[in-house]
């Protein structure tokens, strides 16, 4: 047997690809696996300190999912999260595009420092902003409505989208826009018909990030919305399933599993765009 035949393609893949990647896959998927396993365990097994926490030994139960559906307003919270996240994402990406284009393309005094300032805005933590924002939300009469979240989420999403899209727009050659302008396009038409179709991966990447940030947001949702039927999933699950010193672990994990699905689906569908959007400009 020659060395070449022993080092066949499957073996080579195993040692150079699958085995090196395995620890990372395990690290990334373990929390999801643990959530899933816990959500199907019976309470008796959950409390049993002698039971192996990584496997289900005493039978499966759908009780936690049933409790979530029947005893809480979980699906309303889920829908609220979806509405708020989609709306905030659309608004933020649109504003981000309109802000990123001039900052990336036009030469005007202070353009660079303005770009940096936008990024710094993104770094201001929401825990500092929620108190002054609560005054603004109240003055606008938006307290206890989903609009409060749709309006406030862009405060951290727009700077992020703008910053990300600025970087992406700069990787698109200016020349193709100049050609369009020579053919009679104005700035807006150039943006719409030339730049955006080329920058789809960057826009999708920004939208995915914005959606994920909105979906996971907790603080503004807690502060600006109180009625049970208007809560988002992050706050609703926490409010209902952590009662003082009693944690409903099965229900919490069931909620977390269902809550992960939209993000998983979104990333699975747009993974290629997402990666190319993130790595654009990395190699010239």
């Amino acid at each position, binding site marked *: 047997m020659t060395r070449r035949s022993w080092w066949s393609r499957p073996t080579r893949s195993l040692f150079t690809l699958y085995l090196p990647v395995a620890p990372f896959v395990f690290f990334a998927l373990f929390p999801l696996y643990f959530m899933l396993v816990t959500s199907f365990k019976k*309470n008796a097994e959950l409390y049993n300190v002698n039971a192996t926490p990584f496997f289900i030994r005493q039978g499966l139960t759908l009780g936690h999912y049933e409790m979530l559906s029947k005893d809480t307003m979980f699906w309303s919270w889920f829908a609220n999260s979806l509405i708020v996240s989609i709306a905030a994402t659309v608004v933020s990406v649109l504003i981000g595009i309109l802000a990123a284009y001039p900052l990336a393309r036009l030469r005007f005094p202070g353009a660079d420092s303005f770009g940096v300032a936008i990024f710094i805005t993104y770094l201001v933590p929401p825990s500092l902003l929620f108190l002054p924002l609560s005054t603004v939300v109240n003055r*606008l009469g938006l307290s206890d409505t989903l609009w409060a979240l749709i309006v406030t989420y862009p405060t951290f999403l727009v700077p992020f989208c703008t910053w990300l899209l600025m970087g992406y727009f700069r990787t698109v050659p200016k020349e193709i826009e100049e050609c369009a302008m020579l053919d009679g396009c104005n700035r807006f038409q150039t943006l719409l018909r030339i730049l955006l179709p080329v920058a789809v991966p960057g826009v999708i990447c920004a939208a995915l990030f914005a959606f994920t940030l909105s979906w996971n947001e907790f603080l503004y949702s807690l502060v600006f919305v109180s009625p049970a039927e208007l809560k988002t999933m992050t706050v609703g699950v926490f*409010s209902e399933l952590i009662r*003082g010193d*009693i944690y409903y672990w099965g229900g919490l994990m069931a909620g977390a599993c269902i809550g992960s699905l939209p993000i998983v689906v979104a990333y699975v569908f747009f993974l290629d765009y997402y990666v190319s959007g993130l790595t654009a400009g990395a190699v010239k």
Partner: protein
Amino acid sequence: MVNRRQFLRVTAGGAASVVVAGGVPATAQTRELTFLTIASFVPETDKELKRQFEEWGAKNKVKVRLDIIAHLQLVTKKASEVQARSGHDLTALGPGLGDADLYFDHLVDLNDVAADVAPKNGGWMNPNDYLIRGKWKLLPWWMPPFPMAVRTDLLEQIGEKNPDTWEDWLRIGKKGKAIGHPFGTALGHSGDANVTLLSIMWSYGASYVAKDGKTVAINSKETRQAMEFVKRLYTEAMDPEVLAWDDASNNRCLNAGKCIAIHNPISAFESAKRDKVVIPGTQREIAEVIDHVNTPRGPVDRKTTTGYWCVGIWNFAKNVDLAKDFLRYHFQPENQAKWVDAGHGFNMPFLTNLTKHPVYKSDKQYRFIPEVAKVTVPPSWPGPTTASSQQVLDLYILPDMFAQYATGKMTVDQAIAWAEKEMQEIFAGRKRKF
């Protein structure tokens, strides 16, 4: 044709006028009363409160809205409502009476409601404790008394009965640990750790603040004795995991069949009963072998504390009179009785007659709860509750002090000196109050 500048002027002006005018004008004025409370440890309590709130709303033709959040979220929610000077009319406050001092200028005086409620319910248990700067800025609402929850089968196995003192529990913990069932009390950043450590301090005659409410009293011979005891309890009767425990951990330890005893309200027992948790390796329900006995006494005293959950009315509330009216309704003896019943006694009001509620005789496991309530005092005892005394608890200075010594990271003098300095800064106002 509107040009760009005109468009900007009109839209910016419109937005500014909305902000300056104080929001969108209401198109229809309906009477609505809103109430923010915390998710009760026993869910049926919330259902009964909601029923009473809706019943009162229907009688008075008032639209009502009860919003429930996790107790850990209350601090954030209170801060944002006070900042915006808008939010709910009624609000849960706590844990602890410190909110009354902290939000003194934002809460309505409830002297009239407190005076109306008391006679119908046999009076407030310790009214002087609840007065903040001489006023009723909140009504003490409910507390979960802190007995000792113990596994009777294990007690029998190690040949112990009728434990009553902290020394008894140390001995039981040692024997329990030897057979794989240690004693369990949190020594980390949790409310339970504050409660149990204060109980031990008082039982040795120590306290962290003097009767004047201003002098830090932690540096004493009695504190040193309490710390020596806790060190023995930690090293001889408990597992090191208690340093990382939160409020749920001791419940889990008892219900998992590991801990022989925990210092905790009846919530662990209630959840074990509800979930039909069994003793590992058997088919026997663990709730059958859990008993509750009085909070332990020490060489000097028998005292404990707990979460003092209160209710108040913001002075920026739209319907102060309606809010007071609902409080009077909720504090009627029959409504209080139904509410306590729904909570299986976990939510004991601070009203003398309610400490004798039949629920405490309905189950032998509850027999000591009224006794525990009698020796329950606010955490700042013997001093009055202030924002500073509350901050000492919120920063978990006591658990840190005990843990530093118990784990050998500091000597007893170093740990006390550290805690004393922290507390002096708080009481001197050098540390920002929230």
